[in-house]
């Protein structure tokens, strides 16, 4: 029998007010502006855009403000908002070779065309607190080189590719439209387009852990960062009524090309293999983790064993989405009164039966001894 329970409306309304107060914090401290989050917490915004799977810096900042900085809650807000919007279509595939570079490093070549550009990074900081940031009024005055960077820089794997040392990366016959997991259910084994889409919107922490597991031997790849690049790329879109590509403006992207050890076959001599990561905003850790797991998930394609979690597409794709994961974990908080009542009755019955059985056995024993 299912007993519907109603109630709690007043309590829920009251909690809305209370969470608003909690979010605001001490009213004596000025309220944070969405523009301040957008400009000064850009890396958090990037994470929200990735895991919310929607590029909009203002909305990401608003989501962070509304969620008190809870990144997964913020991603959830982005996902929910996205479902209310019509989709005009798909962009032309991004051309990351034409990126306006702000940072680009390679661990495989010291001297490469375009050079090693450190850009804005915490990599070479000492991780000591800058207590000056406790006060307002910090200003930066970055240096400027006399000349800009090269207008385009070759992607590092393409340099190896020119020598035939790198696994080729070419569109399949007919350059098909990619699968869209927001429109169609995923089935396994999942193709590379499905895997990449799933990881691009997947949880950074989950992918970081999986990428780390691969490095530690649970998936055995030996990667080098062929290249990490960060910068702006134009998004082009062909509106139906115009019939030609329109430039919609720039988005910030991080791309990682991971170079891994060799694969070959009867037809192809041994070559380096690739792992690829591409994400919104400046999100190097996410792009690198994605490229590690991308390579691990190619195990089946290369005829390698798939003994470890990072090599198993079903495991990775079903658990990478933190909005889904949080939904299922956190739904446990919701009322399960009836289910639990059932369990309670069951365990009481089991215990009662056990006691009765023990009592019977004890009564029976002296007789058996006689």
């Amino acid at each position, binding site marked *: 029998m299912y007993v519907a329970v109603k109630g709690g409306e007043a309590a829920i309304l009251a909690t809305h007010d209370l969470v608003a107060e909690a979010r605001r914090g001490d009213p004596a401290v000025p309220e944070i502006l969405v523009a301040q989050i957008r400009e000064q917490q850009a890396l958090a915004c990037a994470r929200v855009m990735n895991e919310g799977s929607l590029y909009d810096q203002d909305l990401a900042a608003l989501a962070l403000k509304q969620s008190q900085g809870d990144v997964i809650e913020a991603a959830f807000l982005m996902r929910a908002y996205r479902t209310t919007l019509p989709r005009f279509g798909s962009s032309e595939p991004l051309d990351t070779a034409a990126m306006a570079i702000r940072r680009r490093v390679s661990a495989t070549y010291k001297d490469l065309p375009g050079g090693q550009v450190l850009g804005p990074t915490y990599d070479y900081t000492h991780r000591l607190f800058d207590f000056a940031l406790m006060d307002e009024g910090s200003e930066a005055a970055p240096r400027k080189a006399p000349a800009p*960077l090269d207008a385009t820089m070759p992607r590092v794997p393409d340099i190896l590719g020119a020598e035939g040392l790198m696994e080729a990366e070419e569109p399949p016959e007919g350059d098909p439209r990619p699968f869209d997991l927001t429109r169609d259910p995923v089935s396994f084994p999942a193709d590379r387009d499905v895997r990449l889409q799933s990881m691009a919107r997947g949880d950074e922490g989950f992918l970081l852990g999986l990428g780390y597991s691969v490095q530690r031997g649970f998936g055995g790849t030996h990667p080098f960062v062929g290249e990490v690049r960060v910068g702006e790329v134009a998004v082009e879109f062909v509106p139906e009524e115009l019939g030609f590509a329109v430039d919609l403006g720039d988005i910030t992207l991080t791309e990682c090309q991971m170079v891994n050890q060799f694969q070959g076959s009867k037809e192809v001599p041994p070559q380096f293999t690739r792992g690829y990561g591409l994400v919104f905003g400046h999100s190097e850790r996410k792009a690198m983790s994605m490229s590690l797991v991308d390579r691990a998930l190619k195990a089946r394609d290369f005829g390698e064993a798939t003994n470890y979690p990072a090599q198993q597409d079903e495991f990775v794709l079903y658990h990478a989405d933190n909005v889904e994961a949080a939904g299922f974990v956190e739904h446990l908080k919701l009322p399960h009164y009836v289910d639990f009542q059932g369990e309670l009755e069951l365990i009481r019955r089991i215990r009662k039966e056990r006691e009765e059985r023990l009592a019977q056995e004890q009564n029976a024993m002296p007789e058996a001894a006689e």
Partner: protein
Amino acid sequence: MATLARASRGEIETLLGDPPDHDLLKAPETGTVMVEGRAGGAGRRFNLGEATVTRCVVRLSNGRMGFSYALGRDSRKARLAALLDARLQDEAEGSGLHQGIAALATQQAAARDLASRKAAATKVDFFTLVRGS
């Protein structure tokens, strides 16, 4: 349209002046475009994620149509940019409006150049230490 997509609402407003009479063929509408990437940069297409886009189509009283498509959710900017797009098609090359657009494009290029020069200042100059003789 690329320059207008990157311009601020204020810049477009200043350049357009008083909005001309027009019909809205497509009222400003915010939606998304699914942004595609390519595996490895050049391989198989995949869906990276969506981006917000706002579009608008207008028709001036002389029948000229103007279009606007740009990232973001600014409806007012979309409408003004569509009007400017229509006006630009009516004006001769070298007119004030075209010069205004050229000036905006120059500004945008200068901003890109500045960002690139700041990045270039972080370019590594390697030097090698020679040990022994």
